[in-house]
């Protein structure tokens, strides 16, 4: 079966400087892949390319095995980016035909636990609630791919945890291929099924894929986090341009 999302980005540069080189990975439906890396390593650029907001790159991005633009992509940004003049309900249905959206809005409000906040304006919402609205807005078009750009970095730890739970639930129920960009190894390990580590691409860095151990004990997860931090910390060499981590061993390709 073809994976839901196939990314193969060979080259992307800004002003003659390579920002992304040879980044390739797949994401299955119902799977969460976290993209991790220091700032400036091209994480957001990668996400914008997948979202179709930026098409100036060498390589290909396929959804359902095809390159057409008919696929629906849901996007959640670092800030909720809600329309301040619309209430929660209207924000979720933003840009859709008012008649088409009523029943799906009701279901989504329940799913993101905001049934009672339907008529609230964005200024009346907490950061966590606003981000729930943003997630519902991304889901209402039944996206094939859900992209999240550091969506929880401004939230406190408890809110972040409940939103991790929500992200896993919606990825499972809506069968989206979810890609989340984060700078936090702990978030990556706790939330994702796999972690993609982008080392500094501009300095000839590498891409590392790390599979999270499935029946993970707390200490196994801690080991995962340490492995990722070590990878981020290690200076790249010409030979380890792409390193694939799997559950128990890593090898150079």
């Amino acid at each position, binding site marked *: 079966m073809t994976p839901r999302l196939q990314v193969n980005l060979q080259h992307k540069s800004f002003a003659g400087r390579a920002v992304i080189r040879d980044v390739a990975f797949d994401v299955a439906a119902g799977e969460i892949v976290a993209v991790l890396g220091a700032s400036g390593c091209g994480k957001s650029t990668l996400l914008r390319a997948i979202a179709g907001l930026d098409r100036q790159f060498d390589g290909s991005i396929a959804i359902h095995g095809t390159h057409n633009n008919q696929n629906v992509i849901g996007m959640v940004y670092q800030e909720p980016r809600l329309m301040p003049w619309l209430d929660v309900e209207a924000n979720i249905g933003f840009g859709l035909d008012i008649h088409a959206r009523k029943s799906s809005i009701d279901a989504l409000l329940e799913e993101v*636990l905001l049934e009672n906040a339907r008529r609230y304006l964005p200024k009346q919402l907490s950061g966590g609630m606003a981000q729930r609205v943003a997630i519902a807005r991304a889901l209402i078009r039944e996206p094939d791919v859900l992209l999240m750009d550091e969506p929880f970095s401004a939230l406190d730890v408890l809110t972040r945890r409940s939103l991790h739970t929500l992200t896993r639930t919606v990825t*499972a129920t809506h069968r989206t291929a979810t890609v989340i960009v984060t700078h936090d190894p702990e978030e990556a390990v706790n939330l994702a099924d796999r972690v993609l580590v982008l080392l500094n691409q501009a300095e000839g860095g590498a891409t590392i894929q790390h599979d999270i151990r499935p029946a993970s004990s707390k200490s196994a997860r801690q080991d995962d986090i340490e492995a990722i931090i070590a990878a981020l910390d290690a200076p790249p060499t010409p030979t380890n341009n792409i390193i694939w981590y799997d559950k128990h061993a890593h090898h150079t390709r």
Partner: protein
Amino acid sequence: MNAIVQSPTDARRDAAETCTRTPELKWPADMNLGAKIPLGVVLPALLLLVWEIISRMGWVAPHLLPPPSTLAETAFALARDGSLFNHTLASSSRVTAGFVIGASLGLIAGGLVALNRTAESLLDPSFQALRAVPSLAWVPLLLLWLGIDLAPKLTLIAIGTFFPMYLATVSSLKNVDRKLVEVGLQLGLSPAQLLRTIYGPASLPGLMTGLRSSLGLGWMFLVAAELIAATSGLGYLLTDGRETGRADLVFVAIIALALLGKLSDTLLVAVERRVLRWRDVANLQGEPK
């Protein structure tokens, strides 16, 4: 992957998270007096009292500074024979018509210039040059071209109200948050949809401010137009008072203009409050009582 169920505590915590309002700041000067007497009338009342005393004592010639009681009599007489109403009606309808024309054209031109690069290169330099002309400099030309009837008055008011609206439209459309526009682009909205669902509402605060300054200038240019050539209107009343040496008429016209200007602005503020309910702004003076 584990199926994860949202724990009920999450929901409860989120309910508790529901935002509190902006904390209310209390300034020492914010006394409770305002609840009983509108503070705004205190100063004018005091002024009227002092004015009455000065005039009554004969410290200033009464034909130059008639006491407020005389003004009240004059206003009452003008109101009784209907001329105050007629002048007010003439002036208000001129301002309204000129303002509607000028502000609409300002909105349209501003929208074009803000949203279209070609239109901006083509139109903006000319508008900026025209804006540099003091609007009253158009008067002789308008009189030559359009005579002394309604047309030159409306045109002058329209010119005066055009520029503030034009500038406000351009700047508020250009300042729309790029991040919100990106949301619309990602959702695949057409340019027309973007304009209607994002650019329009997002620029409303700036547009409302533009409307208010535009209307304010409208009253100014109305007086200019009526001072020059008119047989009715509050500006005419001013000229009439000067020519017949009746300072009381001049004062009545000034007071009527002040009240009308304030009234029209209050109406716009009420509209603004209603359409900008969603705005999340700091309130330095605490919640309104």
